């Protein structure tokens, strides 16, 4: 029996990857929840907007690299490209809002119509991304790959089991934390942030109080652009960039937002981690963990894997269904859908 080895295995294969993945989902879900509470519709273009923004970051990264400007071999160059990606996406989202959503706001269209419109935006954005950068996988990660590798950890600790922390994972977790803190500071401490919450709470009274809804909408898109580009870049650094993967992120991101409670920022974050840890936990082969945890001779024969990794979206779907049946408002009592 060797609980320490078991814990290290678990940390290496489940906890760290899930924590990083959960952070990426949380940032995405925050955007979804903000759009839902301010513009009052489910933003189906979220995954493809994320892909498009990440594409801008990749092009900028390549340009920086060829100009000889890099992260000095330590940090990924892409981090410097994020502001450019955010700026581009602010413009893109505001133009889309002007061309598409504003009209539906003016005619006070039903939420379902907004959803369909965002579906259209999704297809167009997806097409643009594929037109520019193609559908194949792109890696744009550079700089130091590991904070510490499996071998370094073994040598340092003298243990049999290895533990690695990739730079992309550490950066993801740290960056996500900073972005979340900044967002919460904005929402609870600034007048603009409070006016967003007020508008989300009670649209009519916000109008009556002199809050300009169009301004609130613009601020929302700017924040969404920042969240989406950051999340997309972190995901790409961690797992590589393929547009189809970003489209598929839509399901876990929505699941995260709904599980946490649509409209609740805290809920989006918690939901992100719930979805990530469930996906990882259920598709992980627990055999090694249990062979360490159980007494000699009781080690399991099978893989102890509940579902193959290919079925990770089934996990997300199951969580979504369970939440919608038993607690439709989510963990933090968001708006019921």
């Amino acid at each position, binding site marked *: 029996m060797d609980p320490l080895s078991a814990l290290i295995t678990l940390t290496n294969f489940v906890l760290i990857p899930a924590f990083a993945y959960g952070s990426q989902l949380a940032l995405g879900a925050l955007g979804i929840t903000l759009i839902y509470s301010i513009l009052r519709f489910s933003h189906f273009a979220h995954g493809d907007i994320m892909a498009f923004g990440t594409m801008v970051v990749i092009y900028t990264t390549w340009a920086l690299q060829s100009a000889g400007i890099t992260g000095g071999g330590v940090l990924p160059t892409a981090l410097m490209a994020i502001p450019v990606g955010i700026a581009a996406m602010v413009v893109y989202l505001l133009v889309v809002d002007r061309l598409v959503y504003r009209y539906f706001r003016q005619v006070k269209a039903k939420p379902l119509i907004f959803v369909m419109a965002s579906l259209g935006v999704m297809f167009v954005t997806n097409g643009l991304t594929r037109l520019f950068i193609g559908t194949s996988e792109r890696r744009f990660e550079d700089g130091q790959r590991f904070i510490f590798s499996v071998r370094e950890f073994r040598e340092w600790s003298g243990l049999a089991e290895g533990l690695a922390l990739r730079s992309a994972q550490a950066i993801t977790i740290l960056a996500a934390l900073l972005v979340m803190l900044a967002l919460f500071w904005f929402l609870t401490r600034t*007048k603009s942030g409070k006016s967003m919450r007020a508008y989300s709470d009670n649209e009519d009274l916000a*109008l009556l109080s002199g*809050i300009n809804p169009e301004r609130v909408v613009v601020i929302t898109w700017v924040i969404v652009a920042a969240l989406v580009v950051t999340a997309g870049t972190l995901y790409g650094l961690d797992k590589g960039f393929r547009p189809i993967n970003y489209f598929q992120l839509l399901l876990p991101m929505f699941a995260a937002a709904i599980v946490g409670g649509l409209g609740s920022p805290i809920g989006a974050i918690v939901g992100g981690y719930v979805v990530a840890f469930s996906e990882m936990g259920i598709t992980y082969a627990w055999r090694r963990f249990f062979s360490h945890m159980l007494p000699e001779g009781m080690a399991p024969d099978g893989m102890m894997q509940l579902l193959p990794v290919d079925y990770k979206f089934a996990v997300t779907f199951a969580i979504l269904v369970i939440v919608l049946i038993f607690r439709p408002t989510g963990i933090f009592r968001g708006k019921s859908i």
Partner: protein
Amino acid sequence: MADPYLIGEDMTGGYGGADILHDCTISVERGEIAVIVGPNGAGKSTAMKAVFGMLQLREGRVRLDGADISHLSPQARVRAGMGFVPQTGNIFPSMTVEENLEMGAFIRDDDISETREQVFDLFPILRDKRRQAAGELSGGQRQQVAVGRALMTKPKVLMLDEPTAGVSPIVMDELFDRIIEVARTGIPILMVEQNARQALEIADKGFVMVQGRNRYTDTGKALLADPDVRKSFLGG
């Protein structure tokens, strides 16, 4: 005779479709409380909304301090000095009491702490609960938040749409006391009330409306003493 501070004069109109108000006049004088009472569906709230610009008037006009404001949007009327507390949905439930007051003062760019202190002095319970989400408060406390929010713009006239709807009789008495206190600070108050008797007791002026028309208009005391009004609207 001097013009009333706020007057909706000969108002006719509705929410599109048939007219709800017919030649209806509502007004409030400086330093007074005016109350609109009447049976259900008489158009009391509609009359108040008309004064606030929330429905299109076909005829008639609204004047504030002598100036015609008939063409102004509700938001512009807030800037012009009118405070309005809707009957429902009058707070930001997920925000704290303090944030509710802050949002009330959204159009102000100057220091609002003094006004906030005045509101807290008027409604001491709000000072105790300033960090609590307004949606978690009791019905009476919520109404205080709602009135407090409207006071944050330092309005020159305050309009309340059934401030005591859905609260217990004890809380209702307390709310009326608070409203009198607000009036004593010099802000004229125009309000719609279901509880006609209590409302007329504190009113300087009462408007009894029936089917979108003025039926009786007099001082609160006179209306309470009028046998016709008593029989028809106050239950004898």
